[in-house]
């Protein structure tokens, strides 16, 4: 700081005490705080965060929208219902006028948030309300699957990398097998078997049709994507002097892992979290589209796209809206994830998903 600056700041009549001599030592912040500062300056990442925040908030307000604004039950079919458009009472599901006149055509978007903003689906349910409820499930599954994946992958990667030898041999082979198994095929196999019966893991029982089933399945199939890079990092860390020093002073394995290894791989895990959330959400939507993800009457963005499959040419909004929601969320998460990666770990390389 220069004298001019000091004089400017001390405008007024009071004499100021002698200025502190300029400090040349810049206080250094921890790596997390430095990264946060860098992330804040990344405009694309911050904009993505805002977009994601808005989507999340709107989806969380789903029950409020359904009960207070649209006055509809998004999970009950409304085959015989009617609604009022421009003063006229019209059926929600009108008899089809095209082709053989069989089947029904649900009403299209009214662009009026109080009823059928995006129209109705084949069962006369409000698509907008279902979109919001579906978003809650898609985001929930995406986030928790990514969290589960990162935690399990972190543990696997650290154990395999740190202990080496037979532990590494077994864990790495397991990862290789899951890695080589195409993700969707593995997820389909697990889903088709578990969805009808549920699964018991120790004391926890996840019932058939539960949302935690896709979380579990998606979390597991992506473990190698995260565990392999972490294992590599731990292998490199083990060669570092500070680990040798810790061994030298007689620290236990647990302590070395906790104090020296985990804090160093934590940034990688954090980098993966938003990217894996996007990937998990996309996988969930694909599985739901194939009818082995979220089970009815629950909705997710994938199941709504599936609902709209038969209405594609007559009522495209049913299909278009959830797809746009998925794409927007995934782009926001990916750009935000790229921002975190640049801030924390510029060398990390990630592979794109399906």
């Amino acid at each position, binding site marked *: 700081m220069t004298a001019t600056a000091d004089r400017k700041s001390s405008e007024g009549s009071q004499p100021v005490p002698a200025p502190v001599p300029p400090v040349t030592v810049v206080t250094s912040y921890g790596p997390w705080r430095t990264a946060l500062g860098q992330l804040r300056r990344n405009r694309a990442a911050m904009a993505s965060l805002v977009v994601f925040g808005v989507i999340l908030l709107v989806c969380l307000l789903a029950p409020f929208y359904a009960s207070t604004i649209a006055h509809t039950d998004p999970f009950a079919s409304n085959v015989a219902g009617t609604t009022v458009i421009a003063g006229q009472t019209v059926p929600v599901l009108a008899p089809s006028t095209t082709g053989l006149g069989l089947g029904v055509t649900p009403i299209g978007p009214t662009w009026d948030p109080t009823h059928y903003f995006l129209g109705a689906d084949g069962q006369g349910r409000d698509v907008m309300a279902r979109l919001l409820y579906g978003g809650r499930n898609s985001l929930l599954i995406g986030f928790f699957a990514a969290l589960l994946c990162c935690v399990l992958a972190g543990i696997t990667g650290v154990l395999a990398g740190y202990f080496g030898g037979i532990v590494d041999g077994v864990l790495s*082979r397991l990862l*290789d*097998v899951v890695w*080589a*198994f*195409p*993700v*969707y*095929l*593995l997820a*389909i*196999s*697990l889903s*088709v*078997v*578990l969805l*009808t*019966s*549920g*699964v*018991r893991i120790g004391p926890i029982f996840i019932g058939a049709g539960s949302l935690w089933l896709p979380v579990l399945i998606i979390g597991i199939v992506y473990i190698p994507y995260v565990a392999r890079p972490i294992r590599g990092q731990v292998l490199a860390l083990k060669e570092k002097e500070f680990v040798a020093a810790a061994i030298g002073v007689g620290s236990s394995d647990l302590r070395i892992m906790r104090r020296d290894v985990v804090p160093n791989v934590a940034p990688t895990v954090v980098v993966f979290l938003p990217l894996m959330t*996007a*990937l998990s959400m*996309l996988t969930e*939507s*694909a599985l739901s*589209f*194939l*009818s*082995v993800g979220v089970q009815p009457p629950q909705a997710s963005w*994938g199941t709504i*796209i599936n609902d*709209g*499959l038969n209405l*594609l*040419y007559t009522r*495209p909004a049913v*299909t*278009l809206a*959830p*797809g746009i929601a*998925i*794409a927007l969320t*995934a*782009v926001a*998460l*990916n*750009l935000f994830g*790229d921002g975190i990666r640049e801030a924390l770990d510029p060398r990390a390389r990630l*592979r*794109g*998903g*399906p």
Partner: protein
Amino acid sequence: MARFALTRFGAAIFVLLSISVLVFLIFFANPGVDPAARIAGRNADQATLAQVQAEFGLDQPLPIRYALMMKHLFVDRDLTSFVNRGVLVIPQIVQAVPVTLSLVLGAAVIWMVAGVAMGTLAAAWRGRAADPVIVLVGVVGVSIPVYWLGEVVNLVTQSRLHDSVFSWVPPLGYVPLTQDPASWALHLLFPWLTLAVLYAGIYARVLRSEMMTALDEDYVRTARAKGVSERRILITHALRCSLIPIVSLFGLDFGALVGGSALLTEVVFGLPGVGRLTYTALQNLDLPVILGTVLYAAFFVVLSNAVVDLVYAALDPRVRHV
């Protein structure tokens, strides 16, 4: 090279065995529900259950059950569907394979060519407007659900603009290459483009960053000092070295495509390939078909990955010495 090939195929065989065991455990050794009931389909009668029980040896110990499953799948190939009574599964899969391969290989050619072209241009024009656009296309590529994009393409080409711009687009479906090559290509054009558009962006992005690194290398500086033209540096020097990681990425994605996105694309475009077979089986919970398609597709993916790794090793001798 021979040693590398041997170890690589040894690893592939280990993985194949492990995957088959994993699938076996998922389908046949999951506690809780009787596997016979699941394989026989919904509301099966007692006779069918007994038949399944005998066919898969469900009262026998696990290793024998595993052997029986593998025998039905790969030796006798007499796995039958219980939902569509008596339909043999394996011939169905064999019949569907050319469709899936047509889809995937065509898309792969398009996305490799487009991705390499876009990536090279982005690297040549770094700092200009096209560069961030390509980066963004790459991000959007990993973010759009492919089956949804397929539906949007259908909406436009089959319905909304079908009477004007896209009147030449044939209805959804598949025509075998041997029957009518032109019609084959026309039917597959939009499925190819749908799959390729997303991957081209990712490849362009990866290639761009690889080429940026390569352009800062000493050999490029030397080439410049010799007076080699910029275009030649870009193509014969930087691009050639940057293509190596693209090959390995291609191996991974090709496999992921066969076992994933292609499955979804086939459903959307009504292509009677392995993916659609799996989809209809999932709708009816036709477990023998799912078992068959999953294992056959997984095996194909593992083997094609091994082949790509060999190509990679042939291109880059450093890989052989790991």
